[in-house]
């Protein structure tokens, strides 16, 4: 399109875009810091869990071009492991979350190894099918508590000092993990590694011929994404004090796709905005006499047809057009 626009930085991000990104990120942090004084903290914590989950998912779809339709498997695994670690082993909450991330990542190695053998839509179907298998295993294994899930997960005391049953302490804990996760993703995307991911997405045989072992790159990205999804799941299980099958169903995988699509695939802020919209909607719709799935489905259709770039993507596009 614009063949010779000036002032593109090394990663192809225009400098003005970069500034805007900084402003938006700072705005987000400030908003999240003051929000719990006005908004129901549990709602905000849920929002952050889903935003982080979607952002992890977005690493794959947005930057490697792989649509995983089975990301709930990692989210759920993270949730179960963290919940188990907290409830049965009574570990430090932070350690629980870390273990959740490791669990998600480990599962990511297994599923990723199989799934990245195929591309595009096949990849999506394979992740979907494998995650369904994980679902069945979760349903049947005694460790997960089957239908009932792991209930009454204690939030615990961070470093043996901070009691996370205090809402604000818990909120801060979640906020810090969330920001850490988002920063990690941002760093990865804008790193030399991220650049190679983009190249692979664009033309895989060419990347091979340049000497890149593309399977390895994809697997690394997959595992990072799965690990962060596990972290999100782990946090969620502490926030709600519950890890359940919901976290691991394919509908959850669909939901994270929706969040990302709605917010804007391949944008840093998209998953956050998407999560905000979806979580809010779900909260309010549950009280209405209107089938939730119809509305969610309708939003899906509308997104795909009308604004594929998502909210953030559209805004960015509009700004780029103007300036």
């Amino acid at each position, binding site marked *: 399109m614009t063949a010779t626009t000036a002032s593109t930085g090394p990663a192809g991000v225009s400098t003005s875009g970069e500034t805007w990104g900084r402003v938006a990120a700072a705005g987000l942090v400030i908003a999240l810091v003051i929000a719990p004084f006005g908004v129901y903290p*549990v*709602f905000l914590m849920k929002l952050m869990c889903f935003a982080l989950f979607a952002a992890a998912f977005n690493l794959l779809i947005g930057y490697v071009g792989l649509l995983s339709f089975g990301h709930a498997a990692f989210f759920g695994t993270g949730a179960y492991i963290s919940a188990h670690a907290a409830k049965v082993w009574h570990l430090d909450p932070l350690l629980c979350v870390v273990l959740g991330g490791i669990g998600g990542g480990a599962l990511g190695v297994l599923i990723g190894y199989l799934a990245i053998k195929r591309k595009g839509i096949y990849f999506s179907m394979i992740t979907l099918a494998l995650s369904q298998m994980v679902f069945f295993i979760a349903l049947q294994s005694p460790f997960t508590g089957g*239908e*009932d899930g792991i*209930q009454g997960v204690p939030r615990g005391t961070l470093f043996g000092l901070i009691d996370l049953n205090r809402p604000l302490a818990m909120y801060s804990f979640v906020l810090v993990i969330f920001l850490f996760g988002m920063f990690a993703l941002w760093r990865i995307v804008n790193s030399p590694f991220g650049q190679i991911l983009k190249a692979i997405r664009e033309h895989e045989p060419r990347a091979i011929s340049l000497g890149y072992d593309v399977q390895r790159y994809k697997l690394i990205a997959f595992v990072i994404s799965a690990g962060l999804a596990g972290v999100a799941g782990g946090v969620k299980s502490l926030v709600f004090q*519950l890890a359940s099958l919901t976290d691991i169903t394919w509908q959850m995988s669909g939901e994270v796709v929706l969040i990302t699509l709605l917010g804007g695939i391949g944008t840093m802020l998209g998953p956050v905005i998407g999560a905000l919209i979806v979580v809010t909607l*779900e909260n309010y719709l549950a009280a209405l006499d209107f089938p939730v799935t119809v509305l969610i489905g309708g939003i899906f259709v509308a997104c795909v047809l009308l604004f594929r770039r998502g909210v953030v993507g559209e805004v960015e596009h509009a700004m780029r057009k103007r300036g």
Partner: protein
Amino acid sequence: ADGVKIGILNDQSGVYADYGGKWSVEAARMAIEDFGGSVLGQKVELMSADHQNKPDIGSNIARQWYDVDNVDMITELTTSSVALAVHELSKTKKKIDIVVGAATSRLTGDACQPYGFHWAFDTRALAVGTGGALTRAGGDSWFFLTADYAFGYQLEDDTSKLVKQEGGKVLGAVKHPLNNTDFSSFLLQAQASQAKVVGLANAGLDTTNSVKQAAEFGLMAGGQKLAGLLMTLAEVHGLGLKSSSGLVLTEGFYWDLDDRSREFSDRFFKRTQRMPNMIQAGTYSAVLSYLKAVKAADSKDPDKVAAKLKELPVDDAFGRNGKVLANGRMIHDMYLFEVKKPEESKKPWDYYKLLSTIPGDKAFFTAAESGCPATK
């Protein structure tokens, strides 16, 4: 806060949407109207939400209701996993919940808590009704089709225990995956076992599909009896008598039991075009009982209301000889029914033949037996 707020939390769009669903909301509304619409001079408000059978959505809604909306009591709570989650939450929030639609006896067993109640039925009662009474009536060899998850195992275990207690035999069981669609393979195995009774230790669509396919494969025609361990009028209605006739099941309520049940059910029918099952009627009873307890306690204070709930007898269109045990279990009579043949059905919704009545104190665990730590 002003007003007494009651929340109905259940599945309104999923597999159990007919089983309780918005009909339960209607039943609760009837209870409030019957009570007069207000208590302690405060208006009674009703809220409802769809938990989509997901414990996290359920507990999230409940959390908000308790934290933000000042809801005083949550009821219905179809689906055991959600019920358990909300039960746990109610304990920490010190709020009252009355579970109607969930089956697991753990609610008043190891998961019991001072503010939690369990109203219409539980796995124990179903097992006693179907397993015990049916075995006594001659169905003394069993084969189970069990949904392969905790709830299925619990139903199977509870029932087999009673079957054995009554001198019956369990010839075998086959575990099928949850949300299975085709049961023919399992039904062939059930057929081959030559058990007199094939027990369906599953729920929702799994149950209806197995009933339908059992008819197709001529299970009942071959002389075997089919026992639905968790079925209600709503599922029978959905299946039609052609597929479900001969099926044996236990419910805590039937619209055509007596004048009180008919009177209530007729009013319910006028509003909803369907007859209530035990979940819906149970929700009516739960709400009514709660309001009575609030009135008797002259306060919304959960400790006082809980004490009153355990003190007052339950006697309404749903509850016969009902009383609440120390562990929160409401006990009342249960009934073993057989589904009529199409030609025996005289009028719409005329589906059940009463086989026997199981008195409340036989149907349920006593507080001591229940395994509730507080009442051991």
